[in-house]
């Protein structure tokens, strides 16, 4: 008998299997997710917190709207959801704003399509968050160079070349940066 190729080449876990895998996440992975959610919450629309996007990602996994491919770690899977939620929230926030402003200005009932370009609020928020991240590493000039390079979308080799950093300097700076990120990610927010 001839074997036909599968129509979907990636196998995914069933929602119940994914939910079970989520329950079995280890403590270090849970803390890693907390630190990652805190990073992705930077520059989110107003009133959105890291808890909101993390809980939303868990809710989507349990509801089965997000399917985890087989062999992908739960941390990597949740990280992917967090990343997409970040842009989704901005899209939703800005389309709501666009419709509201259009209605107020033109008094037209017909909704217009939202502009795909980032709005002024997102630009201001991005500026502010970049400043906060820069301040986080203000004591470490090498880390600031790496942040600048990362912002420009440079690769590790390009950063080393452009910012005149040796490979050893680059690696040790990354280690220091990880420590700062972990401390920042695990510490409690004062409110």
């Amino acid at each position, binding site marked *: 008998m001839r074997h036909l190729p599968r129509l979907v080449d990636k196998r995914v876990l069933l929602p119940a299997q994914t939910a079970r895998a989520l329950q079995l996440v280890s403590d270090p992975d849970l*803390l890693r997710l*907390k630190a990652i959610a805190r990073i992705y919450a930077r520059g989110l629309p107003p009133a959105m917190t890291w808890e909101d996007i993390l809980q939303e990602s868990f809710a989507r996994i349990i509801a089965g709207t997000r399917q985890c491919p087989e062999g992908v770690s739960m941390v990597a899977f949740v990280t992917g959801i967090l990343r997409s939620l970040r842009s989704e929230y901005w899209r939703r926030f800005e389309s709501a704003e666009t419709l509201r402003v259009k209605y107020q200005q033109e008094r037209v009932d017909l909704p217009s399509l939202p502009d795909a370009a980032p709005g002024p609020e997102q630009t201001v928020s991005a500026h502010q968050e970049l400043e906060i991240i820069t301040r986080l590493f203000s004591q470490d000039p090498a880390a600031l160079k790496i942040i600048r390079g990362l912002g*420009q979308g440079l690769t590790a080799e390009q950063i080393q070349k452009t910012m005149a950093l040796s490979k050893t300097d680059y690696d040790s700076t990354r280690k220091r940066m990880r420590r700062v990120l972990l401390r920042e990610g695990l510490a409690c927010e004062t409110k």
Partner: protein
Amino acid sequence: MRNKVKKVSPENALANVLDALVNELLDVTDEEVLGTAQELKMNLSLKESAAFAGLLYPEHPKVGDFFDVESRSALPSSDRKIRSTLH
């Protein structure tokens, strides 16, 4: 010769930086995570540890954590109820 520096919008720059920082955290070992929690004097054997704030219990309690705010707001206000009984 220096590489040409590209002009990147703040939104893209932030997205690039965040993705790179998240990748750093994905590479962190379990020992590093546990070591940092210890440095911060967090006891991971307790479920109510500050490390799990926002994960196993809310970091900042909200009214909605204790009361069913949505159902409550759907109910007619007591003021309106009193007025309707008077008329």
